[in-house]
């Protein structure tokens, strides 16, 4: 379980997170929705310790990771996979090497064992036969799949998705969402998806949290969120700008 308590973060004079409180339940897919530039990615980067908050805590399995650094933080990170917005694939490596990277760097598995795991991960994301291509030779959707395979390969307990469908066409958006859902069932990880794909995100999330103006303004099941009476949530779902306030 991941528990975020009163998280504050500013960049210079701009306050991005203004007291975020959120619980991400184990084995569930939680989606954080909200407008672009609203601090969703900043929140995700705090969960893996890429950013340190000004104040507040993030408890992962009872340990406050905002207080950790070095080897202790790395130990927590070993159980977390991240799918970055652009994939963050190493462009000097092939698809195979990208997916194998967490294993070659952090485990003592032999080449045969790594090969088996890579081929399985690639097959799980529907990328058989693509292992010797370079990221630059792949389409946007394929790159996201490779990033997912790389996140899955270490069998982490949690996977964080930073806008995994940005820049994809509606058919690919559904296909990536379906892939996330299927792999979540297969691997049983806890998922956190940062997204503004409305209404597609409601199909794959167990719970949805709305981040607005640096705070979580509503959390609930997709049905509850869709029926929410909160004006901010309502307007966001139907895509209306509330006098510049939303």
């Amino acid at each position: 379980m991941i528990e975020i308590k009163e998280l504050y973060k500013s960049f210079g004079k701009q306050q991005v997170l203004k007291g975020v409180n959120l619980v991400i339940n184990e084995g569930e897919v939680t989606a954080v929705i909200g407008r672009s530039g609203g601090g969703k990615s900043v929140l995700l980067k705090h969960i893996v310790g890429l950013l340190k908050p000004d104040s507040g805590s993030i408890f992962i399995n009872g340990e406050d990771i905002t207080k950790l650094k070095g080897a202790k933080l790395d130990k927590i990170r070993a159980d977390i996979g991240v799918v970055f917005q652009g994939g963050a694939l190493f462009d000097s490596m092939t698809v195979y090497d990208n997916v194998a990277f967490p294993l070659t760097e952090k485990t003592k598995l032999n080449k045969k064992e790594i090969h088996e795991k890579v081929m399985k991960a690639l097959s799980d994301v529907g990328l058989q036969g693509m292992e010797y291509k370079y990221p630059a030779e792949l389409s946007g959707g394929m790159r996201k799949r490779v990033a997912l395979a790389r996140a899955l390969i270490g069998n982490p307990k949690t996977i964080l998705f930073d806008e995994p469908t940005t820049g994809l066409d509606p058919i690919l958006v559904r296909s990536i969402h379906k892939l996330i859902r299927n792999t979540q069932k297969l691997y049983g990880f806890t998922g956190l998806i940062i997204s503004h794909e409305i209404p597609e995100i409601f199909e794959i999330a167990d719970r949805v949290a709305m981040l607005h103006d640096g705070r979580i303004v509503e959390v609930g099941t997709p049905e509850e969120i869709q029926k929410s009476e909160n004006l901010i949530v309502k307007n966001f779902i139907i895509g209306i700008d509330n006098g510049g306030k939303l």
Partner: protein
Amino acid sequence: MINIVRFIGGFSLNFLSFLGKMFVFLFEFIYYIFIPPFKFKNFLRQVRFFGNKSMIVVIFTGAFSGMVLALQGFYALNKFGAEALLGPVVALSLIRELGPVLCALMVTGRAGSAVTAEIGIMRITEQIDALTVMAVNPMKYVVVPNILAGLLTFPLLTAIFDIVGIYGGYMVSVHALGLSEGTYFSQMELYVDMGDIRIGLYKSLSFGLLVTWICTFMGYNSGYGARGVSRATTNAVVLSSVVILIWDYMLGAFLL
């Protein structure tokens, strides 16, 4: 008046903050050299990148530097009837000064800029963040191999530069200007000692550190977008070149 003071104050603060960040980066590099595991494969790849791939440009620059030194040196020495000293003039100029400096400037342009751009792109495309979240330290994985490769390859490239330059000078002196082969090399043997070679070695070693330190730092702290990377690359090349020349003078004055 207040504006001038404010400008000087702001500039000084920014400069000190920049220097501070650079030295923290250097200390981190030194710390991570001793933390296992050592990324030997990355180190070898960077040795190949800095060393092997810079060879052609170093050979060309070395050859023509030696040739032009011989040509101009002959013209000047001829006025005093001291053409016999052409060998030592070419060799000392190359070994003590031009070899380390020109070689460092050429490698900065060819490889240093590429290293900054590559690390900068890794930064803006979140590849550095990806390394961090996979619990792979980017300083160890990216920066340490680059700086160590610079420390190894700069002296070797400088040695190649010097040798090719001396032979370039030989070709012009002996085959174009009619100086005897024996005079060119025997006088060189007489005037060039180990101290001169040591100065060249110290210079190339320090340039190797300075160039790779500046270039990796600039890439690592690159701004966002294509403009951020292009600015980081330009700054890395300009700063490296200026620092090479300043450090060359300081080291020269200290070691003379």
